[in-house]
């Protein structure tokens, strides 16, 4: 009797849980009826996502949230930013706490399959690097034999570091840290010889030092860190919307559509691809359950991919990242939007 009751309640819970998951099939409808996009972002990563003194979020990942909100809801301001930590980010997505995760997360096999996420593309090609003090006299990561290295736990960088040193038959002494700020502090205090994290993060960290000229970023990039937004498994239409919003931003840069000339191009452009992108001809939007001007609104939200890059992390900002791999494919980079047809 006791067992029957126990099993009964467990079954009920399981049914409730599966019911909840099955009903989550239509994220688009849910977002529209809620009127707000729940977007999972970093709790604070310079250039990528951070709130200012008034609580207004801005950054490279935040701009993508705004673009999706503009495409789906018609207003880039209709986003609720849900700050997620490295530990909670994927659970927050799969439990339905957020509709979209734009949180500088690396696209890996295990996350894509086992964690049941769908990475919808790559918005930043990053790679892991090392920073050392100049007076250490090291000019290559290959010379770091026996070094103490500050490394953030629970990230892919930790695993890459172990792989790299193993592959090169070297040893190292890890100093585990919890956050970027702590890493900088440990490195500055001399607790470790080298600090390793994504190259974008290293550049930002170095720029914030009192004496950036005394530190160098070693030339080796030891890993591929394709950072991209992700959605849940099981709602392909929602995934399509997110994926093609990203492509729209990238394509807009390729075709020279900027937030400044978009209205004019929408009226007068003769390029058929631009006409399709901006909804002047064909109704691509209908095929993903949106209206004709969805991409136009997405691009208007914070500009095309290049504009977003320049405004948040580009060379004019204190972070000062070069486009590198993130340039358009026509410029020797990897940013390649699929055709709008």
């Amino acid at each position, binding site marked *: 009797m006791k067992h029957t009751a126990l099993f009964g309640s467990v079954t009920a819970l399981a049914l409730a849980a599966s019911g*909840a998951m099955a009903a989550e099939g239509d994220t688009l409808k849910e977002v529209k009826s809620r009127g707000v996009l729940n977007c999972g972002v970093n709790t604070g990563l310079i250039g990528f996502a951070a709130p200012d003194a008034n609580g207004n979020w801005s950054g490279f990942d935040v701009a993508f949230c705004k673009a999706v909100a503009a495409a789906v809801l018609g207003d880039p301001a209709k986003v609720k930013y849900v700050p997620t930590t490295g530990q909670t980010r994927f659970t927050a997505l799969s439990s339905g706490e957020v509709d979209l995760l734009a949180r500088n997360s690396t696209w890996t096999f295990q996350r894509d399959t086992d964690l049941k996420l769908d990475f919808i593309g790559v918005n930043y090609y990053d790679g892991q690097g090392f920073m050392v003090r100049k007076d250490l006299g090291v000019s290559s990561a290959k010379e770091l034999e026996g070094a103490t290295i500050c490394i953030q736990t629970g990230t892919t960088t930790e695993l890459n570091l172990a792989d790299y040193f193993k592959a090169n038959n070297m040893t190292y002494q890890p100093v585990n840290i919890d956050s970027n700020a702590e890493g900088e502090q440990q490195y500055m205090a001399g607790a470790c010889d080298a600090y390793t994290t994504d190259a974008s993060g290293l550049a930002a960290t170095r720029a914030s030092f009192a004496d950036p000229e005394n530190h160098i970023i070693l030339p080796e990039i030891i890993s591929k860190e394709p950072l991209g937004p992700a959605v849940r498994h099981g709602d392909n239409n929602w995934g399509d919307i997110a994926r093609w919003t990203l492509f729209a931003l990238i394509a807009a840069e390729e075709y020279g559509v900027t937030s400044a000339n978009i209205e004019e191009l929408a009226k007068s452009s003769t390029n058929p691809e631009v006409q399709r992108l901006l909804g002047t001809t064909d109704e691509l939007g209908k095929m993903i359950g949106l209206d004709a001007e969805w991409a136009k609104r997405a691009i208007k939200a914070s500009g095309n991919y290049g504009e977003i890059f320049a405004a948040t992390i580009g060379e004019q900002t204190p972070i000062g990242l070069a486009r590198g791999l993130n340039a358009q494919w026509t410029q020797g980079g990897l940013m390649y939007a699929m055709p709008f047809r």
Partner: protein
Amino acid sequence: MSETHAQTVAYVRDTMLPPAPPPVTERGAIKWLRENLFSGPLNIVLTLIGLGILWLLVSTIGPWLSHSVWNANGMADCRKIIAETWGPDATGACFALIKHRWNQFVFGFYPAALYWRPVLAFGLLFLALAPVLFSESRRARRIVLALATVLSFAIALVLGAPMPALAGMALLMLAWAVLIEIRPAWALLASLVYPLLAVWLLWGGSLWSEIAVLAGFGIGFGVWRAGARFGLFAVAAAAVVAVLWWLFLAGPVAAALAGMLPLRLQPVSSDQFGGFVLSITIGVAGIALSLPLGIVLALARRSDLPVIKLLAVMFIEFIRGVPLITLLFVASLLLNYFLPPGTSFDIILRVIIMVTLFAAAYMAEVIRGGLAALPKGQYEAADALGLDYWKAQRLIVLPQALKISIPGIVSTFIGMFKDTTLVVFVGLFDPLKAMADTIRASFEWKGAYWEPYIFVGSIFFILCFGMSRYSMYLERRLKRDHR
């Protein structure tokens, strides 16, 4: 006689020696040093080591602290000022960060125009607590009332609250203070209403929904009074009626009343909370809810009814056996799997519930310690007087048991208040880590490390030290010296 004496003794001193001061080694600072710091080889070594550490600390942190900059626009600016003032190699603290982002540390992302609302809620907290905390001393109570009223009014004025809000604040606080002075018993009722008022002030929205919640208690009380002679049955009926009211009627009634007379404040959603407003909200709610829950659990654990005892033991041991972070993760992530999609159950409310359950389990054990410390004669005396269980607990057992447990209770409170910083793991902006990291993620303040920790740590110290001093005051007040 005296002549005989003069002949037999060669010399007699006829004047007293003037009193001399004690030897140098037996007085003043030297004596103290010898006795306390250099009384033996071991103590000499320990003293020297201690002095060395102290010197190390002062010589490293001292210059950094004394070179602090309070006015700057960013880290780069701050470093420039330090280099200009104290030379190129000087290091210094950039407390300008605290000044620049002060509002964020205190209020999180609460709309700036509405800062007066949390201030008022915090000020009223003292008005609500004064009759309870300082029931024994009229003077202490008056000091608290005056300070709370004047300070919260002044702070709201400085923060630029609108005129009607200021007038309302002044009126409400003065009326409440006068009520406490002339009708302390009624003031206790007002204290009971305070939580709903605070919820309304902090989150805004329609006051009618809070009133509807309150009406539920009134209706339940009415049902219980009407059927009091049916004993437990009346209690059950009251609970059922109240729950039915909250589930089905409270919403529509509140909406209808709001339609007639809108008592609305601009709503503020939970994700705009942060900093100390968030910590104090969770902390105060957790403290206020966990004490009664802990008392009930402690009594249940000592109950003679096996079912109740078993349930209490299971609850307490389960909650105490699980880390608080696990409970917070459950609250923020796992609950969503079980709730129907589209339901959003306020995250701060979820966290408050979990923190309360966690603190209540510890509280129950602290109070059980107090109950166990009470001589058996007290229980027997209560029985001998013919008191029933609840009267015996209320009049004889609990007042003594709680008094014994004060240090334990307050240290549970302090621990819980500090634990509120753990909400960073579920994406809420606690002042210590989330808010500090967020501020460090801005272009201006990237590179600051110790300053936010020092600042937030000091505020926590002040608040926790305050609680600790109050508990010592309370212990002195309640001392009856019968052992």
